[in-house]
């Protein structure tokens, strides 16, 4: 049944957030540290294991995939509730810092990605 998939998703979501909340308390931050990330990791590991054990029939999986497909519509709704006016009236400091800070990080992406690739080929070679 589809609801089983939705329930699995909800369970992972809540456990991940719980871990993130505990991590926040432990680090003395008023907030959630990586709750969504933990939830994603949990879902990946759990669904992988369930598939291998054949505990995850297609109908159950469809319950998760439905919400997977709803992701872009949700993001569109999210963009329509941003404080766009404030962003445009924050003054030149806001515009310049936003622009250059973002541009520089874009520029760093291929450089850091390359470090990673090099490391991977190195370890691959070592393994061989």
């Amino acid at each position, binding site marked *: 049944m589809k609801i089983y998939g939705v329930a699995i998703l909800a369970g992972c979501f809540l456990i991940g957030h719980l871990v993130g909340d505990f991590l926040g308390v432990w680090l003395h931050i008023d907030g959630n540290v*990586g709750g969504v*990330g933990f939830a994603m990791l949990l879902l990946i590991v759990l669904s992988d294991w369930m598939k291998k054990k054949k505990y995850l029939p297609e109908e159950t999986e469809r319950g998760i995939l439905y919400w997977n497909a709803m992701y872009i519509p949700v993001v*569109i709704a999210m963009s329509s509730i941003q404080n766009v006016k404030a962003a445009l009236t924050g003054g030149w400091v806001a515009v310049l810092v*936003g622009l250059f800070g973002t541009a*520089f*990080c874009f520029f*760093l*992406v291929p450089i850091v990605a390359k470090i990673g690739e090099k490391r991977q080929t190195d370890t691959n070679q070592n393994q061989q």
Partner: protein
Amino acid sequence: MNIIEKLIEKNGFVFAFLVVGVIMYLSYQASKKLTNNKIPGAAIAISAGLVLAYFGGKKGISDIPLFSGMALLGGSMMRDFTIVATAMGASFSEIKKTGLVGVLSLVIGIVVTFFIGGSIGYAMGYTDAKSFATIGAGACTFIVGPVTGTAIGATSDVIAISIAIGVIKSILVTICTPIIAKRIGLNNPHTAMVFGGLIGTTSGVAAGLAATDPKLVPYGALTATFYTGLGCLLCPSVLYFIIDSIL
């Protein structure tokens, strides 16, 4: 008219589905017919959302009662729930391979952004350590900025600027990611994870990747979700102490 308005206000969440569905249909048609699929439909739809937001107030279009349901559909609960769902189908071995580089990109992303943001603010007249740190933190995300500013006691106008910086960043990332993706090699899970760690603003990363290639969303979102938490940890502490001792 009154009856229709009342009906929609009462069923705002359902109405939001209809509104988003119509936006998506029109955007995907525009993508196909006007741009020959060159600009992805999702990118047009997300930009349309931002334009709609301009007509509202602090909470975008949802400040208008008729569209209040958009706040629920686009709120953090639904956003996180659907982001987690994208993990279904992500490859665990790919994530394990990039794991360490992902952590590295998070730290580099926060530290570099903090100092660049703060330095620009410094050059424009915000020369005290508290303003430097708050503006630098705002360059990370619109959550890290106010959290840092409040923690170290910055003035409220600087905190407002830090929020504006974060929002501008999130919008820029949303719009620019699909345009610049090819040039920075953003077409595989490995680079997507590095991208999420360096840029960090979850909504921008998620929306930008969705418009570039939906398959990359889980990888970018996975690292990006750790960014705000780590930023809230580093900016008001270590990074602020460093700046405070220099200025």
